[in-house]
Every structure is written in structure tokens, then in C-alpha cells.
């Protein structure tokens, strides 16, 4: 089965370090989402792209977070500098297109711990 691939699976680093998370969407999917999940806030949308163009990043702290799609097979989410409050599970999801009748397929997530 086609799957969304995320790396790394786990990341532990110290406050102030740069963190880069990567996502390979399902081949042929043109819409990519980045979510953050915490116990307190639940599943929050950070940013999403269609055809590699950013459509909405209003959920993302602009001063430290950045999201890009260098090409159709790679999406990245960077945090610089990282802070303990960024500790969470970050999910990437992809969909076949931007219509709301398309399911989102989630990757296994990156479990991030900032010490």
C-alpha cells in the first residue's frame, strides 16, 4: 500500500537547536498537510500546500517555524530555534487533491522532545 513516509521517527534535542522534519507524500498526491498533536491542544493544523505552493500557514508560529516543499516528493518542517514547548508529535498527511471529499493519509509522525 502507498504510504506517507516521515523522518525521523523520533527526535530528542536540546533547546535552541534546529530541528528539521521530512515528509514524502504518497506519489501523485498534490496536497500536503503538517499537523502538531499534543495532549492539551489536540490535533492542530500548522500549514498546508497544494501543488507545492503554501496555501495556509496561519497555524504556525512564524518566528521560529518554516515549512517548504522543495519538490513534489518532499515536504519539510523546520524549527529554529527549538523550545521545550515545541515538544509534540508532528504528523504529515497527504491527499489526492484539494477537495474536501478526499481523505487525508497520515504518516507515522515524528515524536519531538526538546529538553
Amino acid at each position, binding site marked *: 500500500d502507498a504510504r506517507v513516509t516521515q523522518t525521523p521517527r523520533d527526535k530528542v534535542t536540546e533547546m535552541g537547536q534546529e530541528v528539521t522534519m521530512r515528509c514524502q507524500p504518497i506519489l501523485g498526491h498534490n*496536497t500536503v*498537510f503538517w499537523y502538531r498533536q499534543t495532549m492539551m491542544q*489536540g*490535533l492542530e*493544523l500548522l500549514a*498546508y500546500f*497544494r501543488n507545492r505552493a503554501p*496555501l*495556509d500557514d496561519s497555524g504556525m508560529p512564524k518566528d521560529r517555524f518554516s515549512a517548504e516543499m522543495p519538490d513534489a516528493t518532499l515536504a519539510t518542517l523546520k524549527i529554529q530555534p527549538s523550545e521545550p514547548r515545541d515538544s509534540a508529535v508532528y*504528523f504529515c498527511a497527504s*491527499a489526492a*487533491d*484539494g*477537495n*474536501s*471529499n*478526499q*481523505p*487525508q*493519509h*497520515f*504518516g*507515522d*509522525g515524528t515524536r519531538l522532545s526538546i529538553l
Partner: protein
Amino acid sequence: QQPVQSPQAVILREGEDAVINCSSSKALYSVHWYRQKHGEAPVFLMILLKGGEQKGHEKISASFNEKKQQSSLYLTASQLSYSGTYFCGTPGQAAGNKLTFGGGTRVLVKP
């Protein structure tokens, strides 16, 4: 605005039924349902696109009432594998697949 799910948690015995509700204060155009097992990614269950439409996945079905701005997920004759957290997601009014997820309903099915 985030849809509201109820109940927040439910414990079932194998074979029992349960209903999970998802309500929105805004007009609903469609509703997505996902299930997430502990330590895993959310997995798509179904999308409801029309008012009153019911869909099914295994013995899990759902309904969508546009007028009431809510959707309900029905777990029938629950199995141990149904344990997990269920999320509803609702798209915004603008075109596109951006979803806002509810807070989730934790389901535990015991033998």
C-alpha cells in the same frame, strides 16, 4: 472553529454499541471521521458529503445531519480492535481540504 465531540470517553464491553457525536457551530459541508490507536497515526474511516448520508466501515457507520450541523458515528457490536481515539474533522467554508479536528473521543473496548 473546532467541532465539539461527545462523549470525551467511553468504555464498552465487546459486542456492545456506542454513539459518538460531532457538532459544529457553523454550517457543515462534509464531515471526515478518523481513528487513532495509541502511538499510531490517525487512519481515515469515512467521509460524509451529503445531509442524511450514511456510510459504513466494518460495523462502524455514520450519519450526517446538515440542519442540525452534526454527525454521529455508530460503533455496532464493538470489537477489541475498535479501541482508539475517534476524531471528526470538518472543512472550512472556503474551498480546499483544510480540516479542523474535534478534540477526540477515547473508546476502550474490553473483553
